[in-house]
């Protein structure tokens, strides 16, 4: 991998990434956004969080054994811990350790 390629490839990602983040600020900063935009603003966060959970698990093949059971179990453990204790650190840390044990030991 030449350093020239590496430089331009990373620069491309920097630009693409920043474009996606700056987009609404370029288009809606002068005039207040239309009603439908405000509706998205208010209601999209819970939807995108749900999508991101499933997206982050999308490399799992649910057609072969154990049919994603380990992932579903680990998500449940994380969720139960979070409902019970409400502590981010406990939920994420314990959930991840639990999953690592599942995939490495079980």
């Amino acid at each position, binding site marked *: *991998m030449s350093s020239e*390629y*590496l430089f*331009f*490839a*990373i620069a*491309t*990602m*920097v*630009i*693409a*990434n*920043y474009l*996606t*983040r*700056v*987009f*609404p*600020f370029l288009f*809606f*900063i002068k005039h207040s*956004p239309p009603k*439908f*935009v405000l*509706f*998205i603003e*208010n*209601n*999209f*966060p*819970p*939807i*995108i*969080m*749900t*999508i991101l*959970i*499933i*997206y*982050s698990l*999308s*490399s799992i093949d649910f057609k072969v054994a154990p049919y994603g059971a380990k*992932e579903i179990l*680990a*998500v449940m453990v*994380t969720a139960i811990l*979070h*409902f019970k204790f409400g502590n*981010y*650190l406990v*939920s*994420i*840390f314990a*959930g*991840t350790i639990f*999953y*690592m044990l*599942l*995939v*490495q030991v079980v």
Partner: protein
Amino acid sequence: MFHPREFKAALKVSVPVMMGYLVLGFAFGLLAVSSGFKWYIAIIMSLIIYAGALQFLAIGLLSLKSGYLDIFIASIMVNIRQSFYGLSLLKKFKKVIFKPYLIFALTDETYALLTTIKEPDSLKKKWYYLYLSVLNQSYWVTGTTLGAIFGLSVSFNTKGLDFSLTALFVVLAIEQYKKIKNYFPFLLGAVASLLGLVLVPRENMLLVSILLSLVAMFIFSKKFEK
């Protein structure tokens, strides 16, 4: 000019992200070095790209020597969800400092903290937002650095470590639920992403799920009224 009260508030709020970013950043640094990248390339990426999913994807894209156009399109697609994030922050970001940086630093988690957790009114918001953004990126860069160093020296079984990303989103979703007390958006998001998963290849799933749920949102807009 340093504002300890704002810094302390930001530090407290950012603790969960610290955990997630140190671990995931560590995983990224480790993965990058073990994939043959120089340690400093991993750190540079965390400094100037600063996007978890994209950086993990980048390891694959660069190793395959993908063309610039492919990289550009793939990057936009992976991050297109972020182009909705700013919408929720237009008002909050009206009077801030280092705005180009704050926009640059709008990762999933920083966005979630900014939209989910209500800061006390007595805080100087512009400093609080800046500290929160800088702190979050510093965790990501620190994690990457530690992971890269670790990857150069030791080897251990990291299988399953990437679940920390999922766990983070689970936690953030539950926080959203506590706020809105309405199960419908979650149901909609789940259905849209499962459809995306079934209908299109994995690399397009995120975009398709987002578009589907946007359309569905307007069809079922009454379900969102409280």
